[in-house]
């Protein structure tokens, strides 16, 4: 089956569904597939259902969906408890087409041709589930439970049917491998380490508080496209006088709105951050009060092993009053921020002094040399963050796509700490993400007693299968993931990983470019077709998804599929009813305290669980062992990365051995037309974004004799992709840009060009740390 859709076919298919309408002005369009929803309710059977859209923009918009005579006819934003969180976007507005798309998977199917050949036969759910369970049993008996890998990504934030809920339970029950993560986590690993939190905890002020910021730095964030509904908070701050800085090599819509656009070279973000630290430290812009009392800056670091000098567990500081080293929390002391001291024969310096040494080479002139940004800009941005307070840094995941992105995260949190931009209204700490914080993310529910998945970072899955070590993986169960489009080194998947797999099960709604290579495909229910709790993204609410319509054709919610397979293996008891499981999930202290249970949630649908406004760290106590902001990371001493240092990325730097052969850096960023690979085939969206392009600066294109609109091949040693070139002045010379998430190309795929090399401590995909060349075909 082809993945290409024809809009003409779609409309014909749609006409079959046409409902007749004889009412008022909408009558003119009654020949079409459905008549429009009226402002005033009609006599016909019509209801409005509130539900949640939950792909990985993590904006978790609540929708009011009008259902007329059993069909969804209208989508509108639902009122939230705080109206500033009322939201919808162009993607969410296309769900009608997604539900009734003629290409939607309708039945379970079994491959009858070769993998990738596209020959399928329809089978019944019983046949499919019997087959999967039978094969799982065979593999488990032969190789052990870890012969199966449940592979999930972020396609859905639903509790039961999404990647971060039910999939855990399923893998745990099977004791299989659970391959997940490895995306969007490097910057946050560096950032959150200093706070002592998890990488996706609620460590940032809620978005509604961002309007109080006076300096906003969007770092590698195309917020105005990728998280459209966070933009108005930022813009409100700007209208109140805030200065907006956007750090991005590409002149995105977001960058267009900035007062200061920092157009640095790709992959040089850390150098820019070190330059800012240099300016802040050398020009005396440090918030001394905060730095001394709330951070690890005064802690004494031993010169011999670069670890904190301790008494028992407690790091020591140099008390200038008594002239000796004392535990950092001793009352009535005046600790030294800087200096070299000798304590019992051990030479020590303060963490702050070490930081000063690290950044001393990164004066604005040197930073300008590395980043291509003028020295004045370094000084300006640093000065703004330190003096035009409150301020903050919102990171997107553009700068996260390089090998050493964790160091950038470390530098960002150090910048915020040194400037005292933490714990106050108007501060922005990276990103606001509420749903995965331990206070609302019920791990006991995910993994009930007696269940235990073997967690495997997704980026290690290729190696694991190829080497069959540490797990003898023979089968994939892929859900909430378009794996071959959203992970790197596609050729390696297909040439080296796939042949080792005896069974690939994929659950999805469309024939995307992963399903082509599956053995059994199962049609998943759409967001509107299930009932469950939804993990909140960047909103401070517990959310309830109401079922709007029954699943179309034979689609089933993931949760029911899990139950179907597990019960055939005698493990069905772990997959209770929606009611039971959602009630158990909410059994958390924070929910009990606030009287939030499933009955109440079903009634109110969105309940605020965080204080208003939510501003963490107001007490200046962090979740680190010392309670201080520990920007000095002892655990990274062996790598020499206890403090942020600048390192060129793997490929994207000028020092790369690939640089001569492949002069262009490939950036595959998020644009507004999709959320990752979701919505790729929605006709309305394809009308405004019809086909993939490689965007080149005209200067680069002309150098290669490429005209605007020419068919080109983008290639490197790993693979290639063929598509049209588009002249684009917003792309700097030296960069090739392709929107991420396209399912199909004329030939090849952009994920053939990317690699799966990772840094041990982040295990993160470096999607932009990639070099390519472009030629006309």
């Amino acid at each position, binding site marked *: 089956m082809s993945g290409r859709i024809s*809009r*003409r076919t779609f*409309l014909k298919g749609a006409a079959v569904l046409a409902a007749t309408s004889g009412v*008022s*002005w909408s009558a*003119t*369009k009654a*020949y*079409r*597939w*459905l*008549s*429009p*929803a*009226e*402002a*005033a309710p009609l006599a016909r059977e019509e209801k409005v259902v509130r539900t949640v859209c939950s792909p990985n923009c993590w904006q978790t918009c609540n929708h009011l969906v009008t259902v007329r005579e059993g069909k969804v*006819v*209208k*989508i*509108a*934003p639902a009122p939230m408890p705080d109206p500033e969180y009322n*939201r*919808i*976007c*162009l993607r969410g*507005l*296309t769900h*009608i087409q997604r539900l009734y798309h003629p290409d939607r998977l309708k039945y379970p199917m079994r491959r009858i041709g070769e993998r990738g050949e596209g020959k399928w036969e329809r089978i019944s759910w019983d046949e499919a589930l019997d087959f999967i369970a039978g094969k799982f049993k065979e593999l488990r008996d032969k190789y052990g439970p870890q012969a199966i890998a449940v592979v999930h990504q972020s396609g859905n934030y639903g509790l039961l049917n999404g990647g971060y809920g039910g999939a855990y339970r399923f893998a745990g029950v099977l004791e299989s491998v659970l391959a997940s993560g490895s995306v969007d986590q490097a910057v946050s690993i560096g950032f959150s380490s200093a706070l002592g939190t998890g990488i996706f905890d609620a460590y940032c002020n809620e978005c509604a508080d961002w309007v109080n910021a006076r300096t906003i730095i969007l770092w590698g964030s195309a917020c*105005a*496209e990728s998280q*459209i*509904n966070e*933009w*108005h908070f930022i*813009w409100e701050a700007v209208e109140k006088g805030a200065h907006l800085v956007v750090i991005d090599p590409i*002149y995105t*819509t*977001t960058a*267009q*709105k900035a007062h200061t656009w920092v157009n640095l070279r790709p992959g040089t973000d850390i150098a820019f951050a070190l330059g800012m630290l240099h300016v802040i430290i050398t020009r005396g812009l440090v918030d001394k009060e905060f730095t001394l009392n709330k951070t690890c800056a005064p802690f004494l670091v031993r010169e011999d092993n670069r670890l904190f000098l301790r008494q028992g567990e407690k790091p020591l500081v140099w008390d200038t009053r008594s002239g000796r080293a004392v535990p950092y929390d001793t009352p009535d002391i005046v600790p030294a921020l800087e200096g070299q001291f000798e304590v019992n024969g051990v030479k020590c310096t303060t963490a702050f002094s070490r930081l000063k040494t690290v950044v001393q080479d990164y004066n604005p002139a040197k930073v300008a040399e590395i980043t291509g940004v003028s020295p004045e800009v370094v000084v300006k941005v640093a000065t703004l963050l330190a003096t035009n307070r409150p301020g903050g840094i919102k990171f997107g995941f553009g700068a996260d796509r390089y090998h050493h992105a964790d160091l950038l995260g470390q530098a960002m949190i150090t910048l915020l700490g040194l400037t005292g931009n933490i714990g106050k209204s108007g501060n922005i700490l990276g990103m606001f993400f509420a749903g995965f914080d331990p206070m609302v993310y019920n791990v006991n529910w995910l993994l009930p007693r007696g269940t235990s998945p073997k967690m495997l970072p997704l980026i290690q899955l290729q190696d694991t299968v190829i080497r069959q070590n540490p797990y003898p993986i023979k089968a994939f169960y892929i859900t909430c993931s378009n794996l071959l489009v959203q992970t790197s080194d596609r050729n390696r998947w297909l040439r080296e990983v796939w042949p080792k797999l005896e069974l690939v099960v994929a659950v999805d709604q469309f024939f995307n470019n992963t399903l082509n290579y599956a053995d059994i495909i199962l049609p998943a229910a759409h967001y509107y077709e299930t009932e469950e709790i939804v993990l909140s993204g960047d909103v401070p609410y517990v959310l309830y998804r109401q079922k709007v319509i029954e699943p179309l054709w034979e689609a089933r919610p993931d949760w029911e599929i899990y139950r179907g397979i597990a019960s055939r293996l005698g493990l069905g008891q772990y997959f209770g009813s929606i009611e039971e499981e959602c009630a158990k999930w909410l059994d958390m202290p924070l929910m009990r305290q606030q009287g939030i249970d499933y009955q109440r949630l079903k009634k109110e649908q969105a309940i605020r669980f965080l204080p208003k406004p939510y501003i963490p760290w107001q007490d200046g106590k962090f979740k680190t062992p010392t309670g201080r902001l520990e920007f000095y990371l002892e655990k990274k001493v062996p790598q020499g990365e206890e403090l942020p240092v600048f390192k060129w990325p793997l490929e994207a730097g000028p020092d790369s051995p690939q640089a001569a052969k492949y002069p262009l850096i490939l950036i595959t960023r998020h644009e*507004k037309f999709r959320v990752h690979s979701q919505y790729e085939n929605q*006709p*309305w*969206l394809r*009308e*405004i974004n019809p086909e993939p392009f490689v965007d080149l600066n005209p200067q680069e294109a002309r150098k290669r004799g490429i005209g605007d609109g020419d068919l080109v091949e983008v290639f490197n040693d790993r693979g290639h992709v063929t598509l049209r070139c588009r002249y684009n*002045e*917003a792309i700097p010379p030296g960069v090739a840009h392709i929107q991420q998430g396209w399912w199909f190309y004329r030939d090849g795929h952009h994920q053939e060009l990317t690699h799966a090399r990772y840094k041990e401590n982040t295990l993160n995909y470096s999607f932009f740390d990639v070099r390519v060349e472009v030629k006309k075909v």
Partner: protein
Amino acid sequence: MRNRVFLLDITRCIGCRSCELACKSEYHLAEGQSFRRVYELEWLTPEGLVVLYLSLACNHCEHPECFRVCPHRTYRKRRDGVVIHEAGRCDGCGRCVQACPYKAPQFDQERGKVDKCHFCYARLDAGLLPVCVEACPTGALNLREGEENLADTVDKIPGLPDPILTGPSLRFRLSGRLKHLLNRPNILGSFL
């Protein structure tokens, strides 16, 4: 008559096209039909690339050209200013499509008739906002009613027809760099 205008805050607009999609979704529009369109205009200046997003629909003009040229009296203007196209009378002659300086009426190949934005008048009558305005995630697209509210707005953008021609119910708010740039005459050329 109520003076109701679309007010587009150009500095706020991020060109996300939610307004366009909201309209398509509400009225289940066919391929190629968009009663509201977001124009993405770029030009290179000595200071660098400038990009501007203009979300335009029918402007429900005071003196609508569509109304004037239609031989079948397909168009009517409500007392509140909303210009309505009665598709029943339309034979698809396309004169309005040619005449409208804003390219608001659009020919529907499938039906052989013209159609256009109706200002969501059924919603207006029910006290609701048009769907494009309701869906706007940035507050860039608004309605304004009454003269006194328009002091901070402009009615001209280079590249758009002179408002004196038809009296469109359309105003813009501009600030910062864009305001400065758009003061230059003819900077955009004609893009419609």
